C-alpha cells in the first residue's frame, strides 16, 4: 500500500472505511514468533483468551495457532500457557 502524501490525507484524518484497521499488518512489528508444541498442548484455550490482539485461532483439529499477519510477538500466550506448549522463537 503506497503511503499517502500530506495533501492526500482526508480532513482531520477521518477514516471512512469501517474495519480498515485490518489492512494494517501489525505482524510486521514482531521480533519473536510463538511456536506451539501440539504434543504438550491440552487444548485449554488460555492462549486464545489472553491474546491481546485476538489473533490466536483454534483449528479444526482443536489445536491453536496465531495469525502471523497480526501477531506482534508479545509472548503473552507463551507466558500464560501453563503446560508450556508455546515457545517464543527468534524471527530469522
Amino acid at each position, binding site marked *: 500500500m503506497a503511503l*499517502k502524501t500530506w495533501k492526500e*490525507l482526508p*480532513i*482531520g*484524518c*477521518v*477514516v*471512512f472505511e469501517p474495519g480498515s484497521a485490518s489492512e494494517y499488518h501489525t505482524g510486521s512489528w514482531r521480533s519473536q514468533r510463538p511456536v506451539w508444541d501440539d504434543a504438550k498442548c491440552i487444548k485449554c484455550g488460555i492462549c486464545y483468551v489472553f491474546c491481546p490482539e485476538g489473533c490466536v485461532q483454534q483449528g479444526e483439529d482443536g489445536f491453536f495457532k496465531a495469525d502471523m499477519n497480526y501477531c506482534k510477538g508479545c509472548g503473552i500466550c507463551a507466558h500464560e500457557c501453563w503446560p508450556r506448549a508455546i515457545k517464543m522463537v527468534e524471527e530469522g
Partner: protein
Amino acid sequence: MGKRVGLEVTVAVAEAVALCRIDMAGVYPITPQSHIAEHLSNLVADGKLDAEFVTVESEHSAMSAVIGAAAAGARVYTATSSQGLMLMHELLPIASAMRLPITMAIANRAVSGPLNILNDHSDIMPQRDAGWIAVFAENGQEAVDLSIAAFKIAEHKDVMLPVSVNIDGFQLTHMVEPVILPSQEEVDAFLPPFVPHATLHPSNPVTMGAFSMSDYFTEIMKAKDEAIKNSRKVILEVWDEWGRQFGRSYKPVETYRAEDADILMLTMGSMGETAKIAIDELRGKGVRAGLVKLRLWRPFPFAELKAAVKNAQKLIVTDRAVSFGGPGGPVFSEIKSALFAQARRPSIYNYIIGLGGRDMAVSDFVGMFDQVLADRAQAKADTYEFWGVRE
C-alpha cells in the same frame, strides 16, 4: 435591525452566542468567565435557546464534551479561563487535529501560582502551539462581533478548525458597555448552518481520532500546519464580510496614528484603548507616536505586521505574560522572529506589563514611551523588563 444595549460583556457574549443558534454548550464555570456559562444556562432553561447545555464536572470534560458533540455534527461552544484552560490543554491539539470547529471564549486571567483571579495573558500563551486560531478583542463590541464571526471562520469548509476569542478578564468581561447586538435575522443572514466534513452516526460508521504511527505523523502535522496557515484567507474574507454587513471591520493587525509614527507600541487585547489615549497625549506634545494592535495571534499575520512597522525607528512590544528564562515576553519573541530577516527594522523594546491584574494607567504607557525615547544609545533595545516592578 440590531439594538444598542448596555450589557455586561460576558452577558453580551452569551447573547451573541445564542444568536448563532448553537446546538450544544459544555461549559464549566470559572472566574472571570462564569457569567458566560451562567447566562447561556439561563437562556437554555428559559426556553430562549434551543440547545443542550451540558453541566460538565471539569474543563477537561467541557472540552471533551464539545469535541464529541462537534464530531456528531453539532455547532458547539465553550468558554473558560486560566486554570480551566490549563486543564483543557491536553485536549486542545486533539480538537484541532480532528479539524473540529469549536468556538471558545477565553476570559484571560493569570495562571497560578500564586493564585490570582485577575487579568493577564499567561493562560493563552502556553496554548500557542495547540493549532487553534486565536483572536483578541479590545472592547465589548469586538467581543460580540468576533464571537459571531468565529463560528463562521471555524466552520468554513476551507478552515474546519477551533477558534479562541480572547477577552481580557474583568477589564472586559465584567464591564458594562454599550454594545450593538445584531438581530436574529442579521445573524441568520451572516452565518449559514454548520455543514460538518464528517459526522459520527451509527448508520454510517467512521473513525475519528485514530492512532497514527511514525509513517504518517509527519504528514498529519504538515497538513495541520497548512490548514491553519490557509485559514488566513478565510479570516480576512469573513471579517470583511462582517464589515460590509455591520459596518465594523476587523483586520489581523490594526493601527492607530501609525502611518507617520517614529515610535510604535504594540498591544494585544483591552490595553490598546488606554495606549491610544497615551498616544493622543504624546502627539499633543509633538511626539510622533502610534499604536499597532495585534488582533490575530494564530495564524500569525507576518505580512500585515511587517507593513505596519516598516517606517518606525522604534517599536515597543508589550507582553502580558512571562516566558521564564526565555528571550523576553512571548509576544516579543514572535515579533522579533517575524522581523528578523527584514533589511530594515525598528529597534525593538519589550515591557512585561499588567501581570495578575496590575493596573496600567495612561501615565504608565506614556512612561514607557518616554523611557524608550530617552534611550538614544539604544542600550535597552532587544531586552525586556518588568514595567513598574519594585526594585
